[in-house]
């Protein structure tokens, strides 16, 4: 019975991971498209370098392959909760800035926001499968940003989207790692499986 449950849980995890990979891919695709739109609409240079933005989680991590599955999920969840708040803030700022005049950017931001939310829910589901309920969101809410100029807000938004795209890649790799037979193992993914 326990073995059956274990098998079922394994299959369930694989299924969820597979779907999560798909969601991550969709999200990355959306974010890449949004970046192009954002740079164009905000009048920014696509090659402009943006310094690390406070409150924006960084995808790069040392010893990634040594992380456990739960750890990966928790980091992902924290990141996407942060991105959800940042994107909501960007959407609000964008509406304040451009009103309804530029619907394209607003719609794309809203789509990515929803996609991030959906992926967040998906990560929570995976955490539940790991017998680890999702942590409360209180700690995930980023601190209120200091007053910024319009250009600074634009650059900040650019930094948020670039990092989100990086996180989409990392999330896919994390989920692919989780889908392997030994959940939580730190085996590195094969090159073919990388995005």
């Amino acid at each position: 019975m326990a073995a059956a449950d274990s098998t079922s849980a394994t299959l369930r995890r694989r299924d969820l991971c597979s779907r999560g990979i798909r969601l991550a891919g969709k999200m990355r695709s959306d974010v890449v498209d949004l970046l192009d739109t954002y740079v164009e609409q905000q009048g920014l240079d696509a090659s402009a370098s943006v310094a690390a933005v406070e409150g924006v989680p960084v995808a790069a991590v040392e010893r990634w392959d040594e992380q456990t599955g739960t750890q990966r999920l928790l980091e992902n969840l924290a990141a996407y909760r942060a991105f959800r708040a940042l994107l909501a803030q960007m959407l609000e700022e964008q509406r304040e800035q451009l009103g309804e005049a530029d619907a394209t950017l607003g719609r794309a931001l809203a789509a990515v926001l929803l996609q991030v939310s959906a992926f967040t829910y998906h990560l929570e589901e995976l955490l539940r499968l790991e017998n680890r309920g999702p942590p409360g969101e209180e700690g995930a809410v980023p601190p209120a940003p200091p007053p910024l100029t319009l250009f600074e807000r634009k650059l900040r938004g650019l930094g948020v989207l670039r990092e989100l795209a990086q996180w989409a890649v990392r999330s896919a790799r994390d989920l692919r790692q989780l889908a392997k037979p030994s959940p939580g193992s730190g085996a590195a993914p094969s090159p073919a499986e990388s995005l």
Partner: protein
Amino acid sequence: MFRCVIWVLVLLCSSTADENSIGDADIFPSSPEIERGSTLKLFCVLGKHYTPHRNASHIIWKLNHELITQENYNIVNETVSSITIHNFTYSKAHVKCFIKYLGEEQLLVHTEVKSGFPPDTPRNISCIYYFDAELTCTWTSGRETNFRTNYTLYRKMMTEGRVILARTMGSCQSKTESCSFYYPDTPYSSSFCFQVKAENILGEASSGCVPIPMEKIEKFEPPEILSVKKITGIKQLLTVTWKMPEKIIPSQDLICQVRYRNLYSNSSEFITVPLNSAKKMGSCNLTGLWDSTEYSVAIRCISVVSKFWSEWSRGKKASTEEKAPSERVDLWRVIESSHPAGSRYVHLMWKPLNNFPPSGRILGYKIQYFPENNAALKMTNISSNEKVILLLNEEAYIISVTAYNSAGNSPEAVLRIPSADERSSQIIETLRTFTTNEEVVVEWVAFEPEVNEYVVEWYEELETDPFSRSWQYVSNSTNWKTNKKNFKPFVCYNISVYPLCGNKVAAPYSMQTYIQEKKPSEGPVADTGIPGKNEVTIKWKEISKDKRNGFISNYTIFYKPEDGKELNKTVNADVLQYRLKSLQPNTQYTVYIMASNEAGGTSGEPKTFKTLKFNKEDVIFIALPVGLSMLVLLGLWIACILKKHAFKKACWPDIPNPAESIAVEWPLDASVNNSFLKVVTTEAKTIDFEDVSVLEHCFPEDSQEGSLLMNCENHISACTDINTKSMINREKKILYDTEIEVDKCFSPSIPYIITDEDIRSQMHSTLIPVKEIQCIEMMEDGVCGSQHTSIKNEENDHEVLKLEDLSEKALFNPYLKNSVKTREFLISDNLPEHSKSEPKSQSTVLPPFHQNVAGQSYVTLDMFGLATAH
């Protein structure tokens, strides 16, 4: 101004009045909507206008037009009446409140009541996700509620298989059984479930939240085909390259399906190509295709986890490589009869290659021909058509035709054209055709069973264009079947079967046939000719070929006498005339001809004729006895005329009168001056003046001498005739002409008497002396002498004899005077002397005189005067 005021008042009144209120009353609840089968309760409130004379007891209720019974009424108070209707089942009805007072009903107010059902639970929820564009869900709502129902589609997140109500990701409203979310409200999640809530005035119902992972319902945009190409040097292959849609989940496994169809086929073939969306492009090779065939290619893709294919991409066409035609053309010929110069036209025709799959696009045909015994004289023609006409001489020729395309030539199709005087043997013994329900079958029997290839040729009988002929090769069989649709019904076809011995075509066996017959389009026209008494010959012509519609099997002649029974005769088709016998004489008949074939007969226009009353035999039988009788009577009459004197002598013989005998008063002068001549002269004066005139009139001066001799002869002959009393017309005419001549040549007139022959014989001896005297006198006149000589020269002795008779007639027996007509001529004073001394009387013959005969000479008064003046 006044009008405006009136209109304002009317508008105010209408706006203040309740739309259901007609009088000063109200009904409530207004326009109620209740559940079907429930109880309806309405109240009608009278206004102050009706009190105190009328109250709620005067209120009556009607449902549509039917009065509701009083037991359902309830008087609430003096001005309010209620009605209760149990088990209200009308979907829509009008309830009306009336007041009945003094026998009159007055509508106070009415309202519409609708009944229906609360919504059922929506079921069968299904969704489709048009990637990054639209998420549409549909469901079924159950039974009709009869009320407006609103639907709300909820998109919720599920956690651990349970719906987290707090995490509704969105909703949409609809009044139909479908609702859509549109981008950007189309997040992609595998944890969504969809729930539908239906609600109307009577209640609401919600479905369960149905988990529908987005990845299972995603539908891509179709891919785009970049190219469909053939690879040079590789046959039967096409390479297809396409681009994946822009909006697609990255790095997911997909399946693309390539559909290709050649233009000769109605069915398509499919191949499936697995690929990953990480690759933006896809390609595959289509192998095993037909040569030189155009293919239409389309592609669609699907996620490996989705159930919705994308739409098919726009199709693209390309052709495979060609190869040389592998089959020879289907060649046939029609040889025209030789011209006098020995040349003849040969119509060559062939069918396009129908090998399947086709080899490629035929660019043209090469026709080569040469005399059979001299291949060095090979001629080559190139044609893009599938027919050609060659003018060949009388020699036998070998003709070959090849089709070519860009890849090469087909094998040669060869036929031998026999020499003009060549006669091939008859190989086919019999041939027959028949039809089944769907097919035409041609069967034949050959003398030589080793012949195993034949050509069946068929064409319409009236078709003259050789290229319009159809043909088909038949191998290893002595029958041929084809669909009836290849033949026109009611048309005569010539069908021929040609045996083939290698490339030599032997003598054909031909026959005519109709695949289907119908009765002739028109009937023959009867020609009755000239009818007889009891028979008539009816003739008709064949119907033109285009109107026969079948083989004419026979003709039927229908004929009917007036007011009689119709009869008919049937004859074979090769008979074009028929003699109807045993007809009633002198009867009008109507006749018409019916031409018949297997399918029926058609009659021509009727003609009428009338038989004769008598035929030729009848006429002969009647006319012959009558004519003979007439001839007999005529003969008798002529005989009577001719033998009158004989009869008279026999019956009433003349008895001489001794008292008038001249035997004692001789010589001639005495007889001349005797009473007999006087009597004659006297009679001539009174009767025959006109004869003188006739004589003068008939001879012009210039011809007088030339005709004198003949006239004298005629005169003599006439005299003879007079003696015989013969009244022949020609002689009469001559007598007319000769009288004046005699008058001249014997002038002065010599009295002479012409007696009957028998009398002459009696008196011959007596008259001789007179004759001599007369001749002496006549010799005094030269004319008379020449006449006399001329008479002697006549070959006819009979004429001579007549002259002698004439001389004899110069003397006559006075006893015979009553049997001779005499005439006394008046002699002119200017006549010669000797003539003047002659007696002025002449005995002559009276020409027959017919009154009122055209052209007959007559005596005018002037002439009479001239004659008598001397």
